[in-house]
């Protein structure tokens, strides 16, 4: 068929409709006159000829419509009509349209946002080459239930030399670097890495080169690779930077490369080669675990084979060095699994929750559409009786479904964009930092299409329900029906099932949210063991050139503390190498005078190096003995303070004061320290973690180069920032302050993940509750209209308003109760999956289960009350006459 005339007719038909119409009228008028004339010529009287001609034409309007149907673009035009009609229908039912569109939008938007994040974190391959081959290696001690411990240098060197499973194996260690030069001194987090670190990840520097194998040797290791961000910000993206020298921790390093822009490996800005000194490689160093190890699997080697390989090597080492390596083996875990390990349970619970929301949303839309179908049954029957073809009615309903879907989908897309951004922004910084490419997470197109498809199908399939209804031949029944036909009841059953399902799903979600809220409350009640209010914290890390001597380190911190203590508003100030809620280092130690412990019973505790005012500053109570003083210096008797947990665990039946301990194992030669005091327990690792044994060394006796300054203030802790920074710069104008925060911020950050989970699940729960309420309200108000006549009769026969109320509410509440029953069973089965996210409550906490069930029943009661009160206002006379 020739295309051109078609298109031009389409154009005319669509946009010059009146002209076409007029022309056709003229043509038909002319036909009529010619025909009349012909009949007059054949001998008929003019009047009779005219009548006969009109009769033969058979109605001008009909002919015009028939011509219209034959025209190009007729389908398009009727579609347009359907759409306009659909829009009009929705505009006349703003309540229905709003609820349906919002429900769809929320379902689509929330799901897309959560699924996008989940996909990016759990499923999307890491942005390294062949990421599935990338493994993380750990020391594990199965007896101690520890599987992801750091690795010691000699163990790593043996693994790397002896393994047959990996193409490349690389270790890295946490490090901080103070960059000095023309700008203000600044501290950066970095890593010391094996020379083949970048090859192992499969990443090439964007500028310059990766490290060379010989750069692992002492003396040749003064080279550095910078992150793209640092290169851009601090060095103005200087393309000639490789080859130039920068000052890191007071030493000169030659920059050899810059990482690619999209390369992310934790929040690392500076890399230098990892060099092992002789002390790192001693036999005893096998007990010092500080390395993280990644490795690239050979192409034909499976994970299981690699595990066996590393385990065999570990067993050889174990036989050779039983003192340090008894019960310690290498463990291999896919790298992606390792980095998502901590956030995985939260994401899976959110995923489950949001899927429930989608289900509820779909059920609700289905419910709304079915309710509307019921009320439109008569309209459709009338239209069918007037000659509307069935496909025409189906198309009409379809277009309404499409309008709803498009509106809901569009709004949902907006919500999805907004929600994804909000989720990315709200995530705790450690999650954001440890997930490569976190900031680049966007809406996932597959996910979006999936949710759109599900919602569209729901609205379209259920939107067609009334059309299927009229397909039945008993048109007259439908016309006569005013809500008492058997078909109506059948659909009513579908709606009831939907409502029960909605209630059950909502209950499960709410119980999940309730459990998280209870956990969070419990966490807030936890005894910290110190007073976090009004405490300023900042990190200081001294360079190893200027502060090589311990006396230099002591001098620096003493002078800085003196200046800070004099600042207005400061009550007391102290140093501590790891303040609570930052890092922790645990250390094995030996109690003098006790026999050598079994390998799995070696005493172990967190340890901290503090200045004398530490306990006063954090308000940690002294239980017995004394705190450190200015006299606990090098040369004086070596002292240590322990906490109650350590006293209870390792000195169960004796007075620890006066006892002596040393760092390290039984055979190690280390100086002995005498216990001079016992202090209260403190939470250091996290609110949900039990009190750990802990001991404190005096800073003046065993100084460290890395320390935090903590200061208790009278006012806002952060107002101290300038004073502290100036105090530090007065002592050393090249010394930066890092990670300035308050103790309360640190604690709050440690529960960001929990708070986020709680808030999200809370939102989902509230949403589910609202949807379920709308659902049950919809069913009940429909039932009431169906029962108008029956209620009228009852009231005419003497039923009181209260009886009617009771009957309607009872009907609704029986639905709600079945929903709650099903939901309770479901929740009972499901909540144990979120056990790892809970704190202080069991997954089947009766108070939460009971409370939430009551809440849901209460809301359902209110939702039933509105239609029930409508029912009591039925006027018996009007109801009876309405038939």
């Amino acid at each position, binding site marked *: *068929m*020739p295309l*051109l*005339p*078609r298109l031009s*007719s389409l154009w005319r038909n669509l946009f010059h409709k009146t002209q076409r119409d007029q*022309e*056709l009228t*003229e*043509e*038909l008028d*002319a*036909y009529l*006159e*010619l*025909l009349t*004339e*012909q009949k007059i010529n054949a001998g008929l009287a003019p009047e009779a000829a005219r009548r006969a001609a009109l009769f*033969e*034409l*058979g109605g001008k309007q*009909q*002919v015009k419509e*028939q*011509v219209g*149907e*034959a*025209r*190009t673009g007729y389908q398009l035009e009727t579609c347009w009509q359907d759409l306009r009609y659909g829009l009009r229908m929705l505009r006349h039912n703003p309540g229905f349209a709003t609820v349906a569109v919002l429900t769809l939008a929320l379902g689509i938007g929330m799901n897309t946002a959560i699924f996008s994040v989940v996909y990016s974190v759990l499923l999307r391959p890491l942005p390294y080459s062949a990421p599935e081959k990338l493994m993380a290696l750990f020391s594990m001690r199965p007896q101690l239930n520890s599987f992801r411990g750091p690795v010691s240098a000699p163990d790593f060197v043996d693994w790397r030399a002896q393994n047959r499973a990996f193409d490349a194996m690389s270790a890295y260690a946490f490090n901080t670097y103070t960059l000095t030069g023309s700008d203000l001194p600044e501290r950066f987090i970095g890593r010391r890495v094996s020379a083949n670190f970048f090859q192992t990840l499969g990443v090439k520097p964007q500028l310059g080169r990766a490290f060379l194998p010989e750069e692992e040797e002492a003396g040749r290791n003064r080279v550095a690779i910078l992150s793209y961000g640092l290169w851009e910000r601090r060095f103005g993206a200087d393309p000639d930077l490789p080859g130039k020298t920068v000052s890191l921790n007071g030493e000169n390093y030659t920059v050899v490369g810059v990482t690619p822009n999209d390369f992310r490996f934790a929040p690392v800005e500076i890399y230098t080669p990892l060099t092992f000194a002789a002390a790192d490689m001693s036999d005893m160093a096998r007990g010092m675990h500080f390395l993280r190890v990644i490795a690239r699997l050979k192409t034909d080697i499976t994970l299981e084979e690699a595990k066996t390989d590393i385990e065999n090597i570990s067993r050889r080492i174990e036989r050779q060095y039983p003192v340090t390596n008894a019960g310690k083996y290498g463990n291999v875990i896919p790298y992606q699994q390792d980095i998502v390990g901590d956030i995985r349970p939260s994401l899976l619970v959110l995923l489950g929750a949001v899927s429930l929301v989608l289900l509820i949303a779909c059920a609700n839309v289905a419910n709304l559409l079915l309710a509307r179908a019921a009320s439109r049954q008569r309209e459709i029957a009338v239209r069918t009786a007037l000659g509307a073809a069935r496909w025409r009615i189906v198309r009409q309903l379809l277009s309404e479904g499409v309008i709803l879907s498009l509106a809901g989908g569009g709004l949902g897309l907006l919500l999805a964009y907004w929600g994804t951004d909000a989720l990315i922004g709200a995530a705790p910084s450690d999650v954001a930092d440890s997930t490569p490419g976190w900031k680049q997470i966007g809406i996932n197109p597959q996910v979006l299409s999936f949710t759109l498809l599900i919602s569209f199908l729901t609205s379209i399939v259920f939107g067609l329900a009334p059309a299927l209804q009229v397909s039945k031949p008993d048109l007259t029944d439908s016309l006569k029906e005013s809500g008492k036909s058997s078909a109506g009841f059948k659909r009513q059953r579908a709606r009831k099932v939907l409502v029960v399902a909605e209630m059950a799903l909502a209950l499960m979600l709410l119980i999940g949210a309730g459990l998280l809220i209870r956990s969070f409350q419990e966490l807030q009640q936890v005894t910290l063991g110190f007073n976090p209010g009004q405490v300023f914290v900042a990190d200081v890390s001294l360079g190893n050139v200027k502060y090589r001597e311990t006396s230099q380190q002591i001098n620096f911190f003493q002078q800085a503390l003196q200046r800070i203590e004099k600042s207005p508003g400061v009550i007391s100030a102290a140093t501590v190498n790891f303040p609570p809620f930052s890092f922790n280092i645990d250390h094995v130690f030996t109690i003098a005078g006790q026999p050598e412990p079994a390998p799995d019973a070696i005493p172990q505790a967190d340890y901290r190096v503090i200045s004398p005012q530490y306990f006063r500053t954090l308000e940690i109570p002294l239980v017995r003995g004394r705190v450190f003083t200015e006299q606990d210096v090098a040369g004086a008797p070596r002292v240590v303070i322990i906490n109650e947990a350590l006293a209870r665990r390792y000195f169960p039946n004796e007075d620890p004061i006066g006892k002596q301990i040393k760092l390290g194992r039984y055979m190690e030669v280390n100086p002995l320290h005498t216990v001079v005091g016992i202090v209260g327990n403190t939470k250091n690792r996290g609110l949900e973690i039990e009190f750990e044994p802990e001991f404190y060394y005096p800073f003046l006796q065993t100084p460290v180069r890395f320390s935090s300054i903590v200061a208790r203030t009278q006012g806002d802790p952060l107002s101290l920032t300038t004073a502290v920074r100036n105090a530090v710069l007065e002592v050393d104008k090249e010394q930066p302050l890092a990670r300035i925060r308050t103790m309360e911020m640190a604690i709050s950050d440690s529960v960001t993940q929990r708070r986020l989970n709680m808030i999200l699940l809370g939102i989902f729960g509230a949403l589910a509750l609202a949807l379920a309420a709308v659902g049950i309200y919809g069913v009940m108000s429909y039932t009431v209209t169906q029962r108008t006549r029956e209620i009228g009769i009852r009231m005419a026969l003497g039923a009181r308003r209260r009886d009617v109320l009771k009957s309607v509410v009872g009907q609704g509440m029986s639905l709600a109760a079945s929903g709650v029953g099903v939901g309770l069973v479901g929740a009972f089965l499901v909540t144990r999956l979120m056990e790892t996210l809970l704190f202080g409550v069991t997954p089947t906490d009766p108070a939460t289960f009971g409370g939430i069930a009551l809440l849901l029943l209460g809301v359902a009661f209110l939702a039933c009350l509105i239609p029930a009160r409508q029912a009591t206002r039925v006027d018996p006379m009007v109801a009876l006459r309405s038939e």
Partner: protein
Amino acid sequence: MKEKEKKTDLLKEKKTDLLQGTLDMLVLKALALGPLHGLGVSNRIAQITQGVFQVKPGSLFPALHRMEEAGWLTSSWGESENNRRAKYYRLTKAGQRQLKTETDDWERISLAIAKALQAT
């Protein structure tokens, strides 16, 4: 005449599909002899089929407009024999080709059907 009309109506009801094609062919054939207005077309068809087909306006006009949009016909306003304004239809090149195709098809089909009916 009345009898025949009934027959056509019956035919129309039963074999709409066949008649659709047939109607197109008859209209094209009628116009092949020269331009005609609507009534002219229906008169010509009645004439050349010796009254077997009485094409009613309800079928005629949709067919005319459809074929015009397909590019087989063009139309223009003109004067009728007795000085009345009327819309005249005329066959285009494409219409002539279409008539040829339809005629060929029809002959093939009717031959086949005739053979089928004669077969014993």
